């Protein structure tokens, strides 16, 4: 029953590969070197792609959690678990590459800038989410626990964003320009195109991983069902 979807998955995988390779090519060959930051700014394309995929993953966890509590359908739960795991992978990449980028540019691995603070707290929430899943794995109610925590987590994010901004003395309404943002506004057309391709590439990569990871849960269910059938 899983075979029919395999072809689409492989096509999606192929699309991911092409997009990632073209993103890489553009990031290194097509976009010109930025004047102020030098070569290191080329991390930025993939860094931003990972962050975007991480954010989308978090949203998907929230939506799937609400979907699960409303319908009780196992499919929502699978998507939520898969998305949280992949989201943590992307966010981890985003945090580390951001740090590596910040070291030569800002002269520090880390600053408590509102964006970074928010992202770190978000990352911690989803690490906690995965730990909750792991520690309640055998409990039949684990899906409900996870869905409740997923909803709490996603609702918390706007409040974290607001408070992180006020924490740094920034008005929560006005958009503040950090070094990173001034930089995005000063993009040349080539840089902008590269950025778009990289973000799209990461989102497609996320979709492909999500499909695979969700299918993994489906296989696990199949195994459990078979074991139960045999025990009977």
């Amino acid at each position, binding site marked *: 029953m899983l075979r029919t979807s395999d072809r689409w998955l492989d096509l999606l995988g192929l699309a991911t590969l092409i997009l990632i390779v073209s993103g890489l090519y553009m990031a290194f060959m097509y976009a010109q070197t930025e004047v102020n930051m030098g070569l290191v700014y080329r991390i930025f394309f993939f860094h931003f792609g990972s962050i975007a995929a991480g954010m989308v993953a978090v949203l998907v966890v929230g939506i799937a959690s609400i979907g699960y509590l409303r319908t009780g359908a196992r499919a929502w739960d699978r998507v939520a678990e898969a998305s949280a795991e992949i989201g943590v992978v992307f966010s981890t990449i985003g945090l580390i590459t951001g740090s590596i980028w910040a070291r030569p540019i800002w002269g520090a691995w880390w600053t408590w800038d509102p964006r970074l603070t928010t992202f770190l*707290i978000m990352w911690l929430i989803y690490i906690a989410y995965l*730990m*909750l899943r792991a520690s309640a794995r055998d409990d039949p109610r684990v899906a409900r626990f996870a869905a409740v925590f997923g909803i709490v987590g996603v609702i918390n994010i706007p*409040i974290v964003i607001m408070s992180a901004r006020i924490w740094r003395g920034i008005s929560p309404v006005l958009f503040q320009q950090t070094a990173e943002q001034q930089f995005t506004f000063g993009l040349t057309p080539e840089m902008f195109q590269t950025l778009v391709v990289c973000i799209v590439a990461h989102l497609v990569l996320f979709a492909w991983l999500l499909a695979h990871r969700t299918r993994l849960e489906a296989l696990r269910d199949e195994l459990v069902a078979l074991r139960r059938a045999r025990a009977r």
Partner: protein
Amino acid sequence: MKFLRQVYAIVQKDLAAELRTKENLSAMLVFSLLVLVIFNFAFELQGVDITVLGSGVLWVAFTFSGILGLGRSFAAEKDKGSLEGVLLSPVDRGAMFLGKAISNWLFITVMEAVTLPLFAVLNNVAIPWFPLVPYIVMGTIGFAAMGTLLSAVASSTKMREVMLPILLFPVSIPLLMAAVKLTSGALQGREFADISNWFNILIVYDVIFLVVAFWTFEYVVEE
């Protein structure tokens, strides 16, 4: 009316159980006192401006000791099997949540009511009771609401003692930021207008998480 009577019954049951043994409250009180003492040595609070660092010390004491009480809130019932009894009875799940949250809030507030004067005495600070007490009470509402929900979740997992702080601390960071800022604002006697942003965050957090926890609690306790 029936709803309120159920809430009251749950609060009464928890208070009666606690008053019989006083295990929970005494553990929380000793713990918060220990936090105050340890911070004194860790930060050498003599000589520094206590109105700046003090709010952080206070809230670490409140949250760490509060989490002890929250952790016991469902664990004790799980061990005695009395939660099943409550769940079998026709008590509304929302009433059950509110009752639990109120009794948790009461325990934490009692602990804070003892910790705050001790903090004042140990560090020689004048406590501005009026704005400070409402801030602490409000901060505790959000913390108790979120803590009650997540304690119900954590108590069903394998590593319940460890799981509660791991779940509760990251989601209560905005609450903690607001409470600390408001507390130090009050200690320094700053104008309310300077810190009103934080007051709004605290209200938003309290309201949103009371509603969310109230709504989702039934999914956590249902078998």
